[in-house]
């Protein structure tokens, strides 16, 4: 499972994964619909802000925030935890293990290959948002957009690693999907997905700023909407990538130990 073998197999893996994403397009479509929650929150918060602004958020700011959230969530999604649970239980993981490429790499490639498909929906909506709401509520500093791009990659990596980590727990127990449910519930509340992080009461906010959830989708959205000046943006990006490193180490250990227990039943 050397790095060279993986990089040589990469083009073929991307091609296969993309073909798969196209073949199961109905499933993709359902995923897209299932992540339209920010649009509901948009309707809700707009109604709230119409009476009086909340913090610095008026209706226009909420519109930019939740449209950006919609785009970011589409582009940083991952669903490997469910796949891993399913493949461990059915024994399908054995087939992946036979290949000379690490299963984690193949999951990552499959995940990333589905993204162009999602972008088909998310990008036009982003363009419309820009046009309607105007540039004034988006970040204007070009350097901030570089930080944003790095934070998108970091956000996806955190989501992906958490998915693999919780998925790998299914090697230790019958099913780890309950953990995923708990994680998702916390994600919904603390990531900025339902409520912008800066609107939380100070006490909760202090904790949220150090938890991983906010760095999955909240940070990229905040950077897009110009919530942070450049130095603050870079500081937050550093914390985000700290999480990426810490999670990589944890997940690698979980995965390696878990595989020893893998019984490969079924098939």
């Amino acid at each position: 499972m050397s790095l060279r073998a993986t990089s040589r197999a990469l083009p073929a893996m991307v091609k296969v994964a993309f073909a798969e994403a196209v073949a199961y397009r109905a499933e993709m479509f359902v995923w897209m619909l299932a992540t339209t929650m920010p649009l509901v929150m948009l309707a809700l918060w707009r109604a709230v802000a119409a009476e009086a602004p909340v913090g610095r958020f008026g209706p226009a700011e909420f519109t930019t925030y939740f449209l950006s959230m919609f785009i970011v969530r589409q582009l940083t999604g991952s669903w490997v935890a469910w796949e891993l649970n399913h493949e461990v239980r059915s024994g399908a993981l054995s087939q992946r293990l036979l290949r000379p490429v690490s299963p984690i790499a193949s999951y990552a490639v499959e995940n990333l290959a589905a993204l162009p498909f999602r972008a088909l929906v998310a990008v036009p909506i982003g363009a419309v948002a820009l046009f309607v709401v105007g540039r004034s509520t988006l970040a204007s500093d070009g350097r901030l957009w570089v930080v944003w791009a790095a934070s998108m990659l970091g956000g996806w990596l955190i989501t992906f690693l958490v998915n693999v980590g919780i998925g790998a727990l299914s090697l230790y127990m019958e099913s780890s999907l309950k953990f995923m449910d708990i994680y998702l519930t916390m994600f919904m509340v603390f990531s900025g997905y339902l409520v912008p992080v800066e609107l939380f009461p100070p006490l909760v906010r202090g904790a949220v700023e150090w938890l991983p959830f906010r760095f999955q989708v909240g940070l990229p959205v905040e950077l897009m909407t110009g919530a942070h000046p450049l130095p603050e943006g870079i500081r937050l990006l550093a914390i985000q990538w700290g999480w990426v490193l810490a999670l990589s180490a944890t997940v690698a250990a979980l995965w390696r130990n878990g595989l020893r227990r893998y019984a490969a039943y079924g098939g």
Partner: protein
Amino acid sequence: MRGMGRYLGLFWIQLRSSLLLALQYRWDFLVDGAISAFYAATAVAPLLVIFHDRETISGWTAPEALLVSGWFILLDAVIDGAISPSLTSVVDHIRKGTLDFVLLKPADAQFLVSTARFQPWRVTNVAGALVVFGYSFQQLGSSPRLEGVIASLGLLAVSVSLLYSLWILTVSVAFYVVKMDNLIYLFTAIFDAARWPVDVFKGFVRFVFTFIIPLALMTTYPAQALLGKLELRTLLFSVLGGALFAACARLVWLRSIARYTSAGG
């Protein structure tokens, strides 16, 4: 009527096997209890943020909106405990082709698949909802009147049948598009909007949530009934609409199951 008795018997058998299974995993009771407490807390958190600096939103005060959240938690328990486990397994049956074994049995297929699995420990969520109800009435400084309680229980029955019908409709899609593991996430994503009073939404979204995917009926109306603010006319139309919806779902199910091709894959 003999048919009815037979189905009641079947229902009891299916429920008992789920209960026995649940008793094997007694620890789940504690785990689920902890999750429900946590879940109730997170369901209420966004409300705290919204009502942080104002008295009312679209005519709803904080304790009144909390009541809507309570109904949301309660119905979520019904979905998680009684509706979604069974119907998620149908999707699996359809994909693998093992629905054959269900169809071969001499009882109605929709009945069999809908009662295949329950998760009794989800009762803990109901307790969470009751705590929320109690707290919001304590904040309101009043208590619900008897006719309000009766009306809201009637609406609860209608909502459960509506949720079940919506699930049947969603599952019917699986007969047409085979690989659909994530249908449940679509369903819960839509249902999540029910935690807010429907008056908050405007225009098209509100129309959809009132008439097409009747979330208003499931959480907003029962809360209004408890508050004694629900009009009798709305109540009657809700019951009528619920019955119509259930009939549609049954028709769609019968048409979809006719398309089932077995074979697996």
